[in-house]
């Protein structure tokens, strides 16, 4: 049992990692230990108390189940989870996609073209410290109450991390690689696409991960502004009705959705960046 080991070999036959199977199984178990402890403590602190403002975990579990498949409370919240989840996901990824489409090219230009940098960089640096939540009133005036404001806030939240990482990335391309490319006959424009862009893909990817994370953070704020659907909307509505178990259910779903979408980006990144010793 203790002698089971997994050996992984890379292409050139060197042993790249020897990780005992046992440790491989232990890691998820260790990761679960802390939340389980919290869950138990939460249970004993709340279960069986009549006027507790926070519901016990079992109530939250039932609420989450009812929210997803129904059959328990059969109220306005039952079997609505997929609607809200889908609404939030589409706003998160929509806003995120717009942010990437704007921030990556802009970041590349600010990083490589001095005139664009001089023109835009100071303004962006000034706007950057303004928290996304502070934009909320203005967003509501400009885009009205509703999903467009949420969309805009998500866009804003994802925009800066992507922009900053892209700018920083392209500004720090190793000069040696530029020299190598030019002595091999790769000039100006094609140098940008064949050297600068791939060289800084890891940096850009870090920005994408951060940006998507922020998009999930901002979505709740965005959806608290009179939107009918979305995880943020459901949390706001449940709060007004003092349905705390549904509030907590919404929080759990946002956490899971954010976690899963981060994993997906990470996996895509690993595939694209398998050449990089820091990512593979």
């Amino acid at each position, binding site marked *: 049992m203790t002698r089971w080991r997994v050996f992984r070999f890379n292409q050139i036959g060197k042993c790249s990692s020897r990780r005992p199977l046992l440790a491989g199984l232990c890691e998820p178990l260790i990761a679960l230990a802390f939340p389980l402890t919290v869950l138990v403590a939460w249970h004993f602190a709340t279960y069986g108390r009549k006027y507790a403002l926070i519901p016990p975990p079992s109530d939250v579990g039932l609420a989450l189940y009812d929210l997803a498949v129904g059959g328990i409370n059969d109220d306005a919240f039952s079997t609505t989870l997929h609607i809200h989840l889908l609404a939030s996901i589409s706003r998160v990824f929509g806003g995120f996609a717009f942010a990437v489409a704007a921030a990556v090219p802009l970041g590349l230009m600010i990083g490589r073209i001095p005139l664009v940098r001089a023109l835009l960089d100071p303004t962006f640096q000034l706007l950057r410290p303004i928290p996304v939540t502070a934009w909320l009133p203005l967003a509501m005036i400009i885009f009205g109450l509703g999903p467009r404001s949420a969309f805009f806030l998500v866009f804003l939240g994802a925009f800066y991390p992507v922009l900053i990482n892209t700018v920083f990335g392209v500004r720090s391309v190793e000069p*040696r690689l530029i020299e*190598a490319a030019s*002595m*091999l006959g790769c000039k100006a424009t094609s140098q940008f696409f064949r050297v600068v862009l791939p*060289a800084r893909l890891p940096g850009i990817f870090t920005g994408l991960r951060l940006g998507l994370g922020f998009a999930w953070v901002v979505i709740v704020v965005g959806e608290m502004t009179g939107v009918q659907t979305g995880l943020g909307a459901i949390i706001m509505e449940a709060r007004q009705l003092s349905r705390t178990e549904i509030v907590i259910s919404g929080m759990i779903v946002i956490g899971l959705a954010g976690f899963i979408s981060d994993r997906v980006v990470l996996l895509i990144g690993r595939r694209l*960046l398998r*050449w990089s010793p820091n990512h593979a």
Partner: protein
Amino acid sequence: MPDAVSPILELKGACKEFMLPGARIEALRDATLTVAKGEFVSLIGASGCGKSTLLRIVAGFEHASSGEALMWGMPIDGPAPDRGMVFQDYGLFPWLTVRGNIAFGPASRGRPASEINETVKRFIALVGLQRFADAYPHQLSGGMKQRVSIARVLANDAEVVLMDEPFGALDAMTRERLQDELLEIWQRTGLTVLFVTHSIEEAIFLSDRVIVMSPGPGRIDSEMRIGLPRPRDVAAADFNELRRELSLKLHSHLARKAA
């Protein structure tokens, strides 16, 4: 255009100055040098003697502050595929495989895909990396990386190969093996090689001619023709004789300064 009268490489009184805040550094003073086609020339000297600067001027990465740098009698303005550079730190593209790195030059110059495939195959075989064709640079040893870097330049039809201490970061065994391989490739292809090193033995072992440079300011001090037949034996008496002679030349400017 190759020109029957002009040598493949020529430096005429090339100088290079760098401006630093509060100081003017004279990296190279009045360097004059002619290299014939097919010649293997080494540049040797202590650090700060301008040997790398000279190489970078020929590569087109630096422009001479005054004087001229010519290839086939035409002024060198900027880097170009006919002068391939092999860097000590390899300068390989980490996101490309061995195959991709070697294909980079031909692909940049818009060669057709079938021709690129053919070329890449040939040069991977030349440096003996068939088994590693799809490996990424971070999976290769230093010696393998330097082989890729040499193949990359050759696959791009370089006439002159500029090598800046290419084997300086390798262990002694790998270094000797690559020296042998380089000589073999050079003899087979008729390349012109300009090779920067700080190893006396390496310079004598490889070169037709060794250019001795000295620092403060960087300049060409003297030169030595190596007439020994190849393959050369580093332990032979005549090799040692040359080693002593070159060592004296290399250190004479120090002695002069002390006197």
